[in-house]
């Protein structure tokens, strides 16, 4: 009798891996990310006008529509309520320039979800960050309109340059204060460092994202950018500028930490973050483009399986 009881309720639980679970389900985590994006959405509406909401709405609705259609065609359960496709839509909208054409936004959202995610088999199978795939497609398809920046203003749309292109082509540096608040030209969600940091603190406090990737990116960008600054301060900007300008913080917090497309193990996360930052600084200082966060993250997304393979920790008792 006692034997049967011990079989039914054993002291030692036997189960298949993974044995360590996150405290959040996928659905809960995705909604927490959406909450963390709210300050950034508000800052984009504040700086570039309430009409920018149409870009976010278009992007999200077309992303959801694409997901629904593809899931329907492939006869898979429709999983819009897990929120991941909504995040893709919001992220894509936030990395587009203000007053971007709504038709192009819709195309970008369709490509982001269709080619960036569903082609690989849906959530959890995609190699590249879907929102960045959409943005990269738009950058290649409409290179002129995606680099037409509008100055943040409450009245009229005035075209302007981003701090990074000012640095690259005119050798002018935007003040750090403006960069921190977000009162500069740039993509919708990337300009305001303070809004992104509020979201980052929320995500780190709830444990949705791991601190390693953002920390590795910020530290190595600071050190690597600092080396060049020390070499020639008149030609290269100070490293704080690199952290606050362009999409660096937005990428570090919301893009590079994507659960699906970032490394699994802590050593790999450091490698991944450091490599992204080095690429970003190299592209910004010596490349042909003013900004390189998007391509750096996409490139390193491709390396993630390799990084995972070589940073896999030793199994307990394993002998090499």
């Amino acid at each position, binding site marked *: 009798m006692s034997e049967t009881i011990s079989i039914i309720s054993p002291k030692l639980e036997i189960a298949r891996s993974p044995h360590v679970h996150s405290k959040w389900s996928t659905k809960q985590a995705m909604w927490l990310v959406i909450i963390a994006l709210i300050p950034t959405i508000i800052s984009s509406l504040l700086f570039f006008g309430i009409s920018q909401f149409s870009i976010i709405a278009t992007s999200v609705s077309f992303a959801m529509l694409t997901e629904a259609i593809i899931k329907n065609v492939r006869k898979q359960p429709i999983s819009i309520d897990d929120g991941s496709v909504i995040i893709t839509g919001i992220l894509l909208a936030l990395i587009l320039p203000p007053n971007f054409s709504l038709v192009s936004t819709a195309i970008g959202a369709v490509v982001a979800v269709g080619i960036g995610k569903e082609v690989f088999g849906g959530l959890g199978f995609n190699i590249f960050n879907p929102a960045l795939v959409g943005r990269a497609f738009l950058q*290649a398809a409409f290179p002129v309109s995606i680099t037409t920046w509008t100055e943040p203003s409450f009245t009229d749309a005035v075209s302007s340059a981003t701090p990074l292109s000012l640095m690259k082509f005119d050798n002018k540096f935007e003040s750090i204060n403006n960069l921190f608040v977000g009162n500069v030209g740039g993509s919708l969600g990337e300009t305001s460092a303070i809004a992104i940091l509020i979201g980052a603190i929320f995500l780190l406090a709830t444990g949705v994202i791991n601190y390693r990737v953002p920390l590795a990116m910020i530290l190595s960008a600071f050190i690597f950018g600092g080396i060049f600054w020390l070499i020639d301060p008149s030609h290269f900007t100070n490293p704080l500028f690199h952290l606050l300008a362009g999409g660096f913080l937005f990428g570090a917090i919301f893009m590079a930490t994507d659960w699906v497309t970032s490394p699994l193990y802590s050593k790999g996360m450091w490698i991944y973050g450091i490599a992204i930052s080095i690429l970003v600084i190299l592209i910004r200082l010596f490349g042909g483009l003013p900004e390189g966060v998007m391509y750096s993250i996409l490139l390193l997304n491709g390396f993630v399986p390799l990084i995972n393979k070589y940073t896999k920790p030793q199994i307990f008792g394993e002998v090499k």
Partner: protein
Amino acid sequence: MKNISLIKEYTKGVWKNNPIFVQVLGMCPTLAVTVSAINGIAMALATTFVLLFSSILISLIRKIIPAQVRIASYILIIATFVTIVDLVMKAQFPELSKALGPYIPLIVVNCVILGRQEAFSSKNGVLRSALDALGMGTGFLIALFILGSIREILGARTLLGFQIMPNMFEPWLIMILPAGAFLTLGLLMAYLNSFAIKKKQNEKASLISNYKLTKSKISNREEI
């Protein structure tokens, strides 16, 4: 030799064994020159010409080519016809020749051509080889035309030089870049493969149901 009808020898290259979508051969010209539909057609016609005449010649002399040097001989024969095409195009269609650039001389190393010589015309008679070459050429033409049209419509608003999209439509620059070629080809192949997969599943299902049917008949008989 298997007994395939002559018509099938031709049609297999068009659909079932399409060199681009099924065999995935000759990717270099496919991706590089299909910026517009007319380029695709010209490329496919040039390739078909070379394929047809080298197939005929090789199947004629297939028994006297020593096996050890066959690849070199094939390449030599192919290169002769490529030179003819290259010079004729330069003389008659200088603009098209300029647009296609180095890809006409590169037909020499197109794997569709060498692949057909190695796999087919070195083992078959002249008529069958010619039909096979024509079929493959037609398949190649269809594939390149579809690819070129899609890329031209989306990338430049035109088809064969005529504007067919309204001015409102903003051309997708990516479509006339290499990335657009890969995207278009990948999506087309996925679309066509979905048909093939569905067909295979149906065949499998009918096989299983047939098997069950005969099995139940047999068991019924045994019971009787």
